């Protein structure tokens, strides 16, 4: 039987380009949506600009560590968030990309991929992260020819196939669970030890045809027209060998989507936006929350909480420090 993941909203209706917004939020994941909720409740004129509602919530099937939900699918949690903020009529402009953000003291101009320009007193970067790549030979060549970064999207193409999952954190462990209904053999390859929660790893006990290769580094993706396997280095024995497989799902964390503001604010050595206790960046009026910041634990509930903190801090900033109007 089919299911239906309706996430339609009355977006765009209130999105006019000729007003000066109090707060525009870039990103529609947990941080951005919660900031929308808190900002609206404080009476701000607030809007959300996002390519997709839910952000990285869609990259996992089950979420079982968000307080109040013992177990919920990522997409359902995303919909719960959306229904909540829709009840407050927070305008959302979807399916557009922000091309650039310019600071014209004291305001911000946001240029969108559909040609619009929006103006706001403050901006919240809640842009999250994109899948980190292995950066090894063959990875780009076999991208979408066996190499995938979205388990929920691409698992159906690997029915009864052998799949390698690269990574050792929670997202890699969850990917293994997501692939069980499809793959006939799963191999986890990770360069060090498990970092995933034990409660997820405990679920591996009943999986047949699961092989775990820890302390093993993937050196190269091999193939002809399609990927056929990977070359790996066993870091204990220092020996190289080939693991033949039909697919490689890369789940090794994210890189921060901070490129829009990299010339405006301070970032750390891996590009994460540095924020203070109130989520403000080095540029007054520009805030950041969630996985795009230097905050170390990339968790849904932490991102949502940071979104709330940011919206409250924006309110204080507008009352006390904003120099415009």
């Amino acid at each position, binding site marked *: 039987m089919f299911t239906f993941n309706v996430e339609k909203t009355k977006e765009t209706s209130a999105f006019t380009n000729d007003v000066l917004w109090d707060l525009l939020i870039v990103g529609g994941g947990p941080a951005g949506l919660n900031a929308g909720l808190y900002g609206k409740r404080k009476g701000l004129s607030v809007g959300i600009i996002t390519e997709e509602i839910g952000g990285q919530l869609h990259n996992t099937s089950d979420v079982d560590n968000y307080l109040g939900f013992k177990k919920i699918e990522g997409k359902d949690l995303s919909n719960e968030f959306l229904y909540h903020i829709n009840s407050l009529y927070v305008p959302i402009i979807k399916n557009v*990309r922000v091309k650039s953000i310019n600071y014209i003291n004291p305001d911000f101009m946001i240029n969108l991929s559909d*040609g619009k320009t929006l103006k706001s007193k403050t901006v919240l970067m809640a842009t999250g992260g994109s899948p980190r790549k292995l950066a090894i030979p063959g990875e780009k060549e076999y991208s979408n020819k066996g190499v995938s970064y979205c388990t929920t999207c691409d*698992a159906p193409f690997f029915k009864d196939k052998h799949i390698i999952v690269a990574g050792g954190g929670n997202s890699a462990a969850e990917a293994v669970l997501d692939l069980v209904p499809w793959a006939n053999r799963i191999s986890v390859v990770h360069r060090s030890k498990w970092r995933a929660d034990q409660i997820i790893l405990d679920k591996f006990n009943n999986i047949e045809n699961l092989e775990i290769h820890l302390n093993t580094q993937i050196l190269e993706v091999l193939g002809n027209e399609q990927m056929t396997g990977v070359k790996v280095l066993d870091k204990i024995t220092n020996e190289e060998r080939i693991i033949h497989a039909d697919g490689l799902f890369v789940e090794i964390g994210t890189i921060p989507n901070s490129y829009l503001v990299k010339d405006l604010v301070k970032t750390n050595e891996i590009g994460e936006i540095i924020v203070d206790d109130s989520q403000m960046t080095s540029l007054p009026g520009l805030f950041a929350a969630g996985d795009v910041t230097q905050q170390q634990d990339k968790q849904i509930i932490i991102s949502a909480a940071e979104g709330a903190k940011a919206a409250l801090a924006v309110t204080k900033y507008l009352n006390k420090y904003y120099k415009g109007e």
Partner: protein
Amino acid sequence: MEKLLNQELQNQIGEFLSHMDKAITFVLFTKETGCETCQTTKMLLEEISLLNDKMTFVEKDLNRDKEEAKKYGITLAPSFVILDNQGVYQGVKFNGIPAGHEINSFLSAIIDMSGVDFGFDKEVVERVKKIDKPVNIKVFVTLSCPHCPGAVSNAHRLAMLNSNIESEMVEAQTFPELSKKYKVSGVPKIVINEKHELLGNQPIEEYLNTLERL
């Protein structure tokens, strides 16, 4: 028979579709044998069309109604097109059932085809209208792909703005031979005029950059 859309979904979708402007028509092509999802797709279109009186649902048989199928370039089942209020085919086609996440590109297409402004900037609209070569866009999707509906909606909007452009969603699992032919092992995969490929959800600008180079 149990409905595909429960009451909550009907309410939610009905509320969204209350913003429709003009009337539209779905023309669905099914076949009697060898089509696992034809009946379910028919149910979906029937149930959706009952949620607002601006929608008309018509069912055709791929093998019997050959002339009609040819008119819309339909060779697969289930496959359907959405016609505007004049009954004109604007190049918007769905091959396979738009369930799962893909319900969102279906609902967008209904609203867009009904004449609600989809909010593109004038400059973008002008660029789309200048495309003067025949364009076919296939967007391969899976129903579990959250990034796919955006790619489908953008392609469909291009088709609605320019009669040289045709856009079709292809549900990869329903048509494995087509997926194999186009070497689809990741979605969304966008194939333009059979040879240009874009991977991942693309904003309208990326589509335009490719179309302008054809």
